């Protein structure tokens, strides 16, 4: 399984691997929003938590359709399915690789982009923490959606439609964590709910995704 993780990370960083796609999108969004909304610091400070979370979510969605599609097209998915690694493990490892190459960088640059959006001081730690705890659910739910649509040509649209409703709870509690931190309120409740969604997704969805993949490989 570690070999698969290393291969996926290596592929992401090689030419055409798509590393930086989500990061670039996130950066563009955070730069353009102040230009579109106007320079008023108070307005920006109010919308910053929501914008940053929506941006991270969409950036994460951007690279999802490649998660299994590339392996499906070149035949590696067939070979992985017949390999000694259980397909549930393949799904979990590929979701982890997606998180490491897409979501983790988003969480790390988010504070820098928070400055652009005039995010209030106390919210920075909560922003990074909520992204770190919440985005694994985005990768895992996305892997499930990618597994459902793997056989389809141009399945990206269907994937987005399937996955977006499942992303809503994560978005609500993630943005709520940052908003409450910005207002100086206690953040433990939304943070715990966010972690709960992540834990539940990581525990259950590899099995659902592996089942969907088996059907799509027939």
């Amino acid at each position, binding site marked *: 399984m570690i070999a698969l993780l290393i291969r996926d990370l290596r592929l992401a960083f090689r030419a055409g691997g798509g590393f930086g796609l989500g990061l670039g999108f996130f950066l563009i969004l955070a730069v353009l929003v102040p230009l579109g909304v106007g320079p008023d610091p108070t307005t920006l400070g109010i919308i910053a938590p929501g914008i940053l979370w929506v941006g991270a979510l969409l950036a994460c969605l951007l690279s999802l359709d490649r998660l299994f599609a590339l392996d499906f097209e070149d*035949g590696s998915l067939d070979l992985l399915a017949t390999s000694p690694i259980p397909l549930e493990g393949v799904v979990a490892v590929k979701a982890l690789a997606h998180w490491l190459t897409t979501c983790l960088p988003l969480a790390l640059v988010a504070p820098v982009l928070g400055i652009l959006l005039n995010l209030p001081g106390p919210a920075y730690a909560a922003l990074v923490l909520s992204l770190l705890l919440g985005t694994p659910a985005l990768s895992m739910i996305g892997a499930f959606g990618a597994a459902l649509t793997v056989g389809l040509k141009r399945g990206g649209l269907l994937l987005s439609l399937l996955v977006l409703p499942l992303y809503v709870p994560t978005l609500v509690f993630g943005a709520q964590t940052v908003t409450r931190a910005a207002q100086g309120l206690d953040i433990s409740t939304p943070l715990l709910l966010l972690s709960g969604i992540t834990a539940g997704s990581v525990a259950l969805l590899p099995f659902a995704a592996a089942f969907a993949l088996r059907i799509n490989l027939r």
Partner: protein
Amino acid sequence: MELRVTDLACARGGLPLLEGLSFAVNPGEALVLRGPNGSGKTTLLRTLAGLQPPLTGEISCPPEQMAYAAHADGLKTTLTVTENLQFWAAIHGQSGVPEAMAAMNLSDLSDRHAQNLSAGQKRRLGLARLMVTGRWLWVLDEPTVSLDVASVALFGRVIRAHLAGGGAALLATHIDLGLDEAKILDLGPFKASMPADLGFDEAFL
């Protein structure tokens, strides 16, 4: 350790292609599947490899003992020849990457990215993967596509060495690999005659 298939029926896209198929492959043997395009060779091999369930029938050998090679080689174009092979060796917990490269005449290309290989070289790399799976039964779907005459002979020798080492091979091919001892199974007589009653659920699969 043998592959014994009893009264197998399999379908592709909900349409039954083969039925009543029985055969056996023992260690040291090669079995060549013949049949016109669309006769169900690929479907049979995918069923054996565990990628799709059979309609009826039994397969004695679990898919975990088979190394399946499909039409697509499963190569990553941005990885080098060595990296591609090392990945599959690591997945299967095996070593022997240099030996596999030498056997398929890839040693000179070891640092070349797979995207810069010719079609025949890619195929040779895909076939070299079989040697690092450590599995005794090779299930091969048209392994000689885009190989030149010399490479076909090279691969024939690799298969023969695998058979001599107690392995077995099941091949769907139209080309003579020089395996004179191989048994031949014509799929023509096993063509499924009537469309089975697929039931309502099949529409959702």
